[in-house]
């Protein structure tokens, strides 16, 4: 058995080790600090539904938009070796479109919500195509290319609804943003699960994963193996566009209004961070979507923990930074390698000792 463990460790720690350890440490820390931190109970919400409540639920619920964006960002990172910093602004545009379509007439039906979402998707995919074209066709560095939409995105969102911050009240929208009557789990959490399943299915029924990784690791070789890397890169931005529309729509539904200035503000950096904590190489190549999802929950749990510790909201960012530095350093190849060697040495000594014992 020791041999098995050793094989696992000396081959380099798995990609998911760091995010999983981070989650575990945060859980343990919180349990020691306040054993009731994770207690989950049933309570009645404003609509009179019986729903799950507690810190754990608000962590998982609150990280939904981040988790959805992180999935798409992982793909862009893997294919292009860079990140899209316009996701927050693009989500504000998608959210504005979502509201704009809903506002075309006073009654809001399920079909109309679907239509609004599809419109938001199309618009976000178009902006994804814009970003993707700059990156894949014009070979502009992703961060610079997406800086354009990052800068102007919220202005575009402002124009869509003519500068107003319209509110929408509808049982369907609040069902999307909080709970579906009869189901105690927050709807955004269900949407994250659904998105994760969609990604899983996409990777199962297409060769996107292999092609994306090949383009990200060695673009020159990928090209000579007939891969159209321009298309793969463009596609990753378009898929991220879908994620942007989903998270924008969640954000709008949660609040029942669109505020183009504040919707998912600053989420792009947390998204990139989630990808990094997930053990994905920000320079592109091999990736794991699941890592990024866990990364999103790590960030959210950290934030909620700090708030629960009564750290003032102005200080939270500084504390967050400290923890993140630790995570990123622990996850760095240098530390991983040293730790892997340490573990294999440890196991070596132990197996030697047990051999001696056997003699």
């Amino acid at each position, binding site marked *: 058995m020791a041999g098995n463990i050793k094989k696992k460790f000396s081959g380099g720690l798995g990609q998911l080790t760091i995010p999983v350890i981070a989650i575990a440490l945060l859980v343990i820390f919180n349990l020691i600090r306040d054993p009731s931190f994770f207690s989950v109970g049933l309570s009645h919400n404003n609509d009179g539904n019986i729903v799950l409540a507690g810190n754990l639920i608000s962590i998982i619920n609150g990280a939904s938009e981040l988790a959805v964006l992180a999935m798409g960002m992982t793909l862009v990172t893997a294919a292009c070796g860079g990140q899209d910093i316009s996701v927050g602004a693009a989500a504000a545009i998608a959210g504005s479109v979502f509201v704009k379509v809903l506002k075309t007439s006073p009654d809001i039906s399920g079909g109309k919500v679907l239509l609004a979402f599809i419109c938001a998707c199309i618009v976000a995919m178009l902006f994804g195509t814009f970003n993707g074209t700059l990156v894949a066709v014009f070979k502009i560095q992703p961060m610079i290319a997406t800086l354009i939409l990052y800068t102007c995105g919220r202005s575009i969102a402002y124009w869509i609804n003519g500068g107003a911050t319209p509110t929408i009240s509808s049982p369907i929208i609040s069902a999307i943003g909080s709970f579906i009557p009869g189901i105690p789990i927050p709807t955004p959490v269900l949407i994250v699960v659904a998105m994760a399943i969609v990604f899983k299915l996409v990777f199962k029924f297409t060769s996107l994963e292999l092609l994306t990784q090949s383009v990200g690791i060695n673009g020159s070789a990928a090209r000579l193996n007939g*891969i159209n890397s321009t298309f793969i890169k463009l596609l990753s931005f378009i898929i991220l566009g879908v994620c942007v529309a989903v998270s924008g729509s969640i954000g709008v539904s949660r609040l029942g209004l669109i505020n183009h200035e504040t919707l998912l503000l600053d989420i792009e950096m947390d998204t990139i961070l989630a990808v990094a904590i997930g053990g994905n190489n920000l320079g592109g190549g091999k990736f794991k979507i699941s890592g990024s999802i866990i990364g999103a929950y790590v960030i959210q749990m950290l934030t909620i923990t700090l708030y629960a510790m009564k750290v003032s909201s102005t200080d939270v960012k500084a504390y967050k930074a400290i923890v993140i530095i630790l995570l990123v350093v622990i996850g760095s190849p240098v530390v991983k390698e040293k730790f892997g060697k340490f573990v294999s040495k440890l196991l070596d000594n132990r197996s030697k000792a047990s051999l001696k014992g056997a003699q």
Partner: protein
Amino acid sequence: MQDEVLLQMSHIDKRFPGVLALNGVDFTLRRGEIHALMGENGAGKSTLIKVLTGVYRMDGGTITVEGNSISIHSPQDAQNNGISTVYQEITLCPNLTVAENMYIGREDGAWINHKDYEKKAGEILERLSIPARATQQLGDCSLAVQQMVAIARAVDMKCKVLILDEPTSSLDDKEVNMLFKLMRDLKAQGVGIIFVTHFLEQVYEVSDRITVLRNGELVGEYLTEELPQVELVAKMIGKDLDELNDLGSAEEKKTSDKEVFYEATGLSSSDALPFDFQIRKGEVNGFTGLLGSGRSESVRAIFGADKVTGGAVKINGKSVKITRPIDAMKNGIGYLAEDRKRDGIIAELSVRENIILALQVMKGLFKPISRSEAEAFADEYIKALNIKTASRETPVGSLSGGNQQKVILARWLLTHPDYLILDEPTRGIDVGTKLEIQKLVLKLAEDGVSVTFISSEVEEMLRTCSRLIVMRDRHIVGELKGADLNQTQVMKTIAGGEA
């Protein structure tokens, strides 16, 4: 002077997960000698070199330089102890200038200003007659010149021990002679040179001693003049030479009566001048010529690897358009690129993923090869080509060069091509694997596959090809077959003796 021990490595052990890469290896280098380190892929040459240069930490053994025991933990330690290396694959920065590349990362380089080291670099380049300017971007130089800059860098660091790992694999004859002259000069100055190469003739031309490794163990140390070439090969591959001879006497294949598979007229690309070319089914042909003669550029044009600018192409008599690699692949053409590291392997992906890549691309985005199918393919080719890997899930980048090459061969064989272009498939590969690849080429041809085989070793091409196209200055200057297929005639044509 040659009796004074400069470097002594004793009982060196190095373990990798699941593999004992070096098992108690001894190596002795004397002052002022050129010492060839020989062995097949996976024999432990590269590992031994990397232990000596601080890339790997050894698990056991001692190293002494001039009698003093030293410990090497980093490439910097090695440099401080006077040990310099020029690696097989060029490890300089192509986007810096030649001068910057010669001084980057050196303690004595940090405080010198730009103008000074450009001047110094220029002097060294001139002294070694290297055809490059100090202010030129390294990436703009040919591979050969980049290699020589790497050597110049090492030479300038006043090294006692100079390690040359496959330095000649991308040099043409003239450049090789220049390098050998340089090596002999350095030897006369008392530098000990460790020379790792696969070119046997070069070993005999320049080295004083030979150390042979096999499977991570020392076979022995010999004086070059006392070890016949045949015996050396036998020691390296550890088996009879009958096989080698068998291959050498393979009878000439008659393919002139077979139908033409591929035909190009006036084909040109951004890098290749217009040329005509055709190949028959089951034919093995070769492109030869000096570095820069356009042989690689021409075959790249066939595959659509560079921007195709003109010409007509027929496959099986039908006109087709090949402007991108995928077009070529869909028409049954496979291409193993010259630069394995840059254009071949996807280093971080597994052997399995690397093997199925080309087939998967041909099938497209929406027809993924299932995991179990992929595993079956990988297992099949790992066995068929005798790929030495811990498992099919091992990242291909951690395999030895020869095995990486086999993985890429497997990738193309899996697409069942009608026409396979192999550009330098045997470069930087041991004798045993070279033989396997040559055999495979002949076997493919027997099965009706057309093969274009390019190698800088003319002998290898003479053994496998029934027709040789000779290029000079980016033009086809001759086509040799039948009785003309001999070393002298090839050399004559390359040199322009036919005119």
